[in-house]
Structure formats: C-alpha cells, structure tokens
C-alpha cells in the first residue's frame, strides 16, 4: 500500500501522486441528524488495527477520490475503488 496504489482509472501509481484524507467509513449524516451523530462523524474514529478503508485523493492523476481498503498493520492492499462505487460496510451511522 504505502508505496504504490493501483488507481482504477490510471493504473499503478506511487504514493507521491496521492493525498490522504482519512477514514472512509464515517458517512456524512443527514442535515437533520442529531448533534451526537454529527459529533461522531466529525470527531470519533473507529481506528481499527487491521482492515481499514481510507480516502486517497489521486491528486496528480485523475483527481478522483478513491477508497483504499488495506491492512494498516501489514500494509497489504485488498482493493481500490472509486469513491462513487464505495459501499460502506455495516449499518449507516
């Protein structure tokens, strides 16, 4: 992971081409959701050790936001999808 990412649009690219945004799992709540939901969305992170979904922006390439699913301990990459194709696992927050 940490060295090369295979962008679904551009192919295999070095880390230099990306900027990393952070956890992809939290979903922006609806405008009418409770304060608690907004707080959790902005500030609380699951931060699991292991499988992890993270937003990577292909800044120097197609400029798409990608969701990189990987292991944050071994750095193995399981898959890279366009953010538009990303399906969040588990129940929505």
């Amino acid at each position: 992971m940490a060295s090369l990412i295979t962008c679904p649009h551009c192919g295999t690219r070095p880390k230099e081409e990306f900027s990393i945004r952070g956890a992809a799992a939290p979903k922006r709540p609806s405008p009418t959701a409770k304060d608690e939901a907004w707080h959790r969305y902005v500030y609380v992170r699951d931060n699991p050790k292991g499988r992890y979904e993270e937003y990577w922006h292909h800044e120097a390439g197609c400029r798409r936001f990608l969701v990189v699913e990987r292991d944050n301990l071994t750095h193995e990459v399981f898959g890279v999808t366009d953010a538009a194709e990303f399906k969040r696992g588990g129940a929505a927050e």
Partner: protein
Amino acid sequence: MTSYRLGSGGAINRGQSLSFTFDGRTYKGFEGDTLASALLANDQMLMARSFKYHRPRGVVTAGSAEPNALMTIGSGARAEPNARATVVELYNGLAATSQNRWPSLKRDFGAVNDLFSPFLGAGFYYKTFMWPGVFWEKLYEPLIRRAAGLGKIAMQADPDRYEKSWAHCDLLVIGAGPAGLMATLAAGRAGVRVILADEGFRFGGSLLSESAAVGGRPAAEFAAEVVEELASLPNVTLMPRTTVFGWYDDMVFGAVERVQKHVASPSPDLPMERLWRIVAKQAILAAGAEERPIVFGGNDKPGVMTAGAARTYLNRYGVAVGGKVAIFTNGGSGYRTAADLVAQGVDVTAIIDARPQSADPVPESIRVIHNGSVIATKGRHRIEGLIAERSGLEEVIGCDALAMSGGWSPIVHLMCQRGAKPVWSDEKQAFLAPDVGSAFAAAGAAAGRASLSECLKDGAAKAHAALDALGRLVGSIDIPEVEGEYDPAFAPLWYVPGARDKAFVDFQNDVHVGDLGLAQREGFRHIEHTKRYTTAGMATDQGKLGNVNTAAIVAGMRGVSPAEIGTTTFRPFYTPVSFGALAGAARAERAAPVKTSPLHGWARKNGAAFVESGLWYRSAWFPREGEKTWRESVDREVLNVRANAGLCDVSTLGKIEIFGRGAAEFLDRIYSNGFLKLPVGRARYGLMLREDGIVFDDGTASRLSENHFVMTTTTAYAAEVLTHLEFSAQTFWPELDVRFVSSTDQWAQMSLAGPKARIIMSRVVQDDISDAAFPFLAAREVTLRGGLKARLFRISFSGELAYELAVPAGYGEAVADAVMDAGHEEEICAYGVEALNVLRIEKGHITHSELDGRTTADDVGLGRMMAMQKPDFIGKRLSTRFGLTAADRLQLVGLKPIEADKDIKAGAHLLKDGAKPSLANDQGFVSSACFSPTLGHFIALAMLKSGRERIGERIMVWDGLRGSEVPCEVCPPVFVDPENSKLHL
C-alpha cells in the same frame, strides 16, 4: 615483510598502477583494488581507532560489514566521512584520512580511555555526571561530545549532482554472487525483464575470492563469462556499484548507485550518486552470508580478521594479509583459507580448531590444534602473536595475522525490514530468512545454502520459481559442475571463556562480553534492552558482524536457545546512504519547483521586488529611483491607488471552472452564504467553512452562464479548495451534476484599482463598463480593443473602484502593458502585494492572518454570512457548538495607537490597560498591522476577547519579544470608507 602483494594473481589490473594517500603519505595500488586491499598491499594494517576506547584497529572484513576501517575520503566540500575502506574502490589521487584520533593514528591521546575502561562499562554515563547540576551541560557533556562521533563533515555545499530514477522489472536479483548470477541467467534467458544489482564494482561475489573451479574454469572466469552473456541480453539490466538498501511496501526497493564515487575527476553531466526506486514483481535476495568473528580475548587487534576476508585479499586482490598467518576456526572456512595461503607461499603457523576433530583437508605440514582456543593476543598496533590454550595448557604462537571463522550468518537484512523476524535454525546454527510470501525469496548463502555448488543450484531454482509465478517458466538451465569446493560446515562457537583481554562482540562501539553480562545483571535482559544499554549493534555496521554473536552469548548467559533471545529489529538502511543520494536534485534553489505568474515578465520589467508566496514568486513592491526603503515604495503605491489608480498582478489566485446543472446548488452547500439566486453576470463574495464550523477559505464565485461559474480562491488555498470541492462532490453529493477544472494557469489576472480605474479600463475594453452597464460585482466576458476575449470582474480587495481583468496567459504581459499605457495620464502605477496588504488592512478585509484555522465567521464579523436558514451547508451543524459561540471569543477589531508615532507589529499580544503581562491577562493578539499612509499612522487588525463590545476601550499592545508596549484604542476594523461609497463610484 608482514602483509604484502603477491607477485601474481588476483582480479587486479597490474598494468594500471594508481597513486593514493593515507594520512598524507603516498602509496601505490592497482586498478581493481579497494582502498583496504591497497593499504594491506603496502603493509598498512593499522587503519582506524575504535569509538569508545580508541583502540587501534585494522580490517576485519573485505566487504560492506566492515566495522573498523572507517576513513574520510577526499577533503573540503567533497569529504566523505566514515567510508569503509573495504568497499572504497581505488582511484588515482584518492586521499584518505584516518578518524577519531588525535594527534595521529599511531599516537592517539583518546586511548587513555582504554586504561579507564573498568569505570566506563556499559551505561556508566547514566549513573554519574549528575552533580552538581550545571556541570553536565557546562563540563561533562561538551567533553563527551568532543570525544564522541567518528568522522568530520565539512558542512559545505556539495559541488556534485545527484539524481533519482525509477526502474521497473519482472525480477530483481540482489547480489551478483554464484546464486545471483545463476538466477539472473535463468531469468534473462527466459526473456523476462531482470535487474541484477550488486553493491560491488565487479560482479561475481564470492566467486572472485574462490579457488575452486566452476564449469571447468577458474570461478572468477566463470563469473566473467556469465556477466558477458547477461550484458548481451536486452531484457537484463546490470547495476554494479548499486546497494539495495531497503525493501518497502508493494515490492518497491530503494537502491543507491555510486555512479562516480570511484572517478578521479567526476563528469558534471553525471550524478555522483543516483537513487533508484525499483519496482519488481518478483525479487530474489542473493546477498550471501557474513562470516562471524569469534569472540575471544584480544580479538580486535589489527591483523585479526575473518578467514573469508583473508581469502578475498589473497585470491581477489593478490594480497597476503600477513607473512605468518594463524588460523582460529570452528569449520571448513579456516582450513580452506590455510590451503589457499599455503598455495600462494604464505606461512601458516597453526590452525587452532575449537572442535575435537575435523574431516577438513589439512595442507601438508600445517599444525592443527584441535580442541584449541585463542585466549589472548599480543602486539599493539598489529598482532604479534597469540596465546593458544588446549586442555589447560597454554602456548604462545607467533603470527602477524590471525584469520578466524566462527561460522556463517545468512544476510537476511532486507527480508526482515517489513516486520518479519528471522528464524533461528538449530541445524544451521544461524538465523535464516523468514517466509515473507512468494514474491521475495532468498537464494544461495543468503538462504543458508552452504557450499558453492548448492548456491549455484539454489540460484537457478529460485529463479525458476519466480518465472513460474510470472507465468514465464520455459525450462530450466544447466548447473555447472564445481571442482575442488570445500565443505563450509561448522560447529557453534560463540565465545571463548578465559579471555585475558576484552573479547569484543561489537568492534566499533567497543562492546565486549563483560558489557553483555553487566546488562543482564542489571535487568536489561530483553535483547532490545541489551542493545540499547550496551550500544551493541548500534554502530555504523548496525551489528552485521556482532548481532548474532550477541544474541547467542546472551542466550548462553541465560541458558536458553538463541531462538528465544531473537534478534533486534532490522531496519533500513542496509548500509548507510548519503543524504545527497536520498535528496537528489531537490536542494538549494531547486528545493521546490517554482510557479511563474504570466505577469512575472511585466512585473520584472517594472522593477518589482519579488517575494516567495507558496511556490509562486509574487511582485511585492515596485521601487522607484530615490526610494530607499520598501516602505517608501509601498506608501507611494497605496496613496496612488487611493488617489489615482494602480495595477496589481493577482494571477496567483486560484481559479476553478464549475460546470453543470447542479453547480449553483453545489456552491450553495459549499459556501455558508447563499448562491442559488446569484444572477448570471454577477460575482458574489463567499465564505467556506470546514465541517467543524471554522472558516476554511474565502473568495468569490461568478456566474458566467446558467450552468457555468468561476470561483476564485486565495493563493495559498487554491489547491486545497479544489480538493475540498472534489471531495464534497464525489463523496457527499455524487448525484449533483457538477464538474470542475482548474483554470488558474489559463488566465493572467490583473487588478486595476483606484478612482480612475474606469476611465483607464474603458480605454482597454470595447464593452460599455459604465456603472450602470457594469455595476459593482458585475462579472462577464468582454472584448478588448484589438479583439481579444477576456473576463472582467468588478470586485475590490482594496476598497477602491476596481476591476479584475483576466486574459489568456500568453497575452498577459501585452495587456498589462496596454493598461499601463492607457493609464499613463492618470498616473497609474504598478503595485505589489505589500501595498495590496496595506490597502486591505485599511479597508478591514481579512486574509489568512485572521483566518488562522481557529476563527468562526462571527469572530471576524461575518456572522451575517451564515445562512442558517439553508437546509445544509458544510460546517453548519458544528458551528453552533457552545465553545464556538461563547461570548468571550476573540473577535476582529481595529487598533489605533493613542500616540500617533508609535508602531504596532503583528504578533503582539493585547493586555487590559494597566494589567501585568500574564496568561490570565492575555486578551488577544494583533493579526495584521501596517503603517497606513492614508491615515498617517500605524493601524492594526486584532483578535480581541469580546472585541466588538469594546470599541473605544484603551488597550495595551504588548510586544515583550521586541520590547515594546503601545497603548491603543480599540476601533472598528474598517479604517477607510466604511460606507463603501468608493465601491459604487
């Protein structure tokens, strides 16, 4: 004669004599020598001093694991400290200097430490130097610092170039010894893209030091033939002098190629070193094995080295390391060394074998002492003899070199850099490479294969496996026959009890067995604790020779298997890499790329002084003749803009084209204020928040057509804002029909400001730009006189009547010239960002000095821009949190000095009048300050606790850092034209 050059033999070019110096003395060597082999050929065994006790040292190895023979190569700005003489390729004029000694290598005052060594055991410094308190920093520490360290760096800029490059291959083979060459040959013949990298300057590895025959030829000749074939294959890239130093995620390897380190006069068109990032589908580690020193008393005398090193100097470089060589071994390597030495006519005084018996062939007439050990050595600057012990009987044996072999440790470093730990093998008595998956395998000696024929075979086999994984296996290659190989099997021998002198495990850091014992006694039992407490393995060789011995000795002290002790963590770099190579060309003025404004040439022509602004250079002010300070120029520019007109380059502002039927809705959600109803042809100022309710950036968006907007951002946040838009559109609202593209580079944009701006602009633009036809905040495409299409915006940062004109970048200079010509009569001037900053402070306009990532819209007086009636916009929900709406927040105010001649500087803090400076009394800070030529005194924007209620209050501007206190009056933040009458002229 002690060590000397043989009359013949070796892979050196005796026809090419090279001259070099060591500590000022001139020596001769041959092409193909290393610095170490050439010094040995000149009988210079004393090469260095150790780190702590300053003990005299010679070479222990003939390769990159060398802990002792560190030298400084070259001088002045090209001096490289801590070079290992054993890998420095000799060239004509090479100048080497010994290190860490004073006044000379032979007579070193620092050696006094050795006498005090009982007091300087592991970790002694943690236990003392604490009294009296100030003495540590004033006395002890400076002394320690001066004594510590190895070589010196000149701290001058490097005169040479460095480059970086990427390489891609199907298979990377690391190490060009028997296994590596066979692996490369197999893969090369199969047609895949192979890279073969080796740290040495000649491919062949141990084959170059080998006296056996391979495929009916001398081993070195066999290696040369394989290399010749590989060089002829277009799919094979050979990379000599290239150290693969790191294995990173996704099969990316870091390597450094020493392109010109061996060249007497480097070419300016070539880099000194080149960093390679090698992306491989498969990789084979064929780095060989390191021969272990034996840990016995006095094992650090110059002249004591590994048996393999002695053999390499003999066979590869044609150098006898001594005239009378003793051997101390626990396996076949010692015997083969003895045999090779004898074959070259070197006297071997005895083979001391720790094992009770051995099956290794003994050269005729050589005495073997089985069950023997070495317990002490004699001599100071060079070994002069040793004391051997067998069954309690001691014997002095004369020698001028001692070749030792304590067994072999596979070089598994790279494979352990990503978390996997090496695995102890009882059978091999060594730590072996871990299984790190099918893409990266060890081969040959690195995989624990012992004999030459096994290594050749294993290299081919691992290549076949890699080819299979690549789907490119077509058949196997033949393995050449080896004749006259020896059996390198050995018995474990970790250290020799009964040492009379220190028995070193880490030569460079002077860590001996006693230190390891002390660490155990004091509870530093985990191997990482032992390492950190004793510094074993922390020297420049990172424990390549000593770490396995350390682990096994600690295991012995604790009565457990080395498997239980394990190793410390392997981390990049395999061998040290220069800053220069890793930095490449990005240094000095090229540390970062330069962004050039399309109006750069115009500004330069008008005499601008430039200032860095992110990657841009912006025109800061335009000095005229007679102006002595920047302030004079800026004051003139400001007054002229307020009185007449000025032209300023604003091309660096970010510009983003926004298309789509959802564009208006999108902007409405991005900005805190409303954008749905913005008419075509109009611009609007907008505020963007972060999701936490804090202001992110401000700027304008103009509606050029129903579904086409252009947004401007601040210069600093141009990239971040585009990313923010993309993130929001792609992840929050993918259903919105909206697309973006940056057009920052397309447009040269200039701001024409001042009461005479319209008259000047109307001479440039064909369209009607009267206030009625083109009112404040109008924004649309216009045609310039001459026919060029352009964009014109009536927006103002200065508070004056102002236009921003955007033209295609290539025409920027021509149009700016035309505007200046058109305004000649109106006394137009060019103005820079400094004047712009004064103009905006006078007008109370905020920048990122105020928007420091902690301010809300309300803090800066823009609470009205929070359109809370909108169902959603970014930052809306969290903006209402208690802490973000508290009454005591810092709020934007203006400040005027009570005494008009006093100056205010940004960064000063605010105190209640009469209050003492203390954290509790801290009321805020000055965010922006300038001299206002319009008002004739300093003014400032400040963030003050509950500031808006405190207009009229007297407050102290406290600048302890610069020693000033200026009483000021709190005032509204708009100093010029608060009614905005000038905007609507």
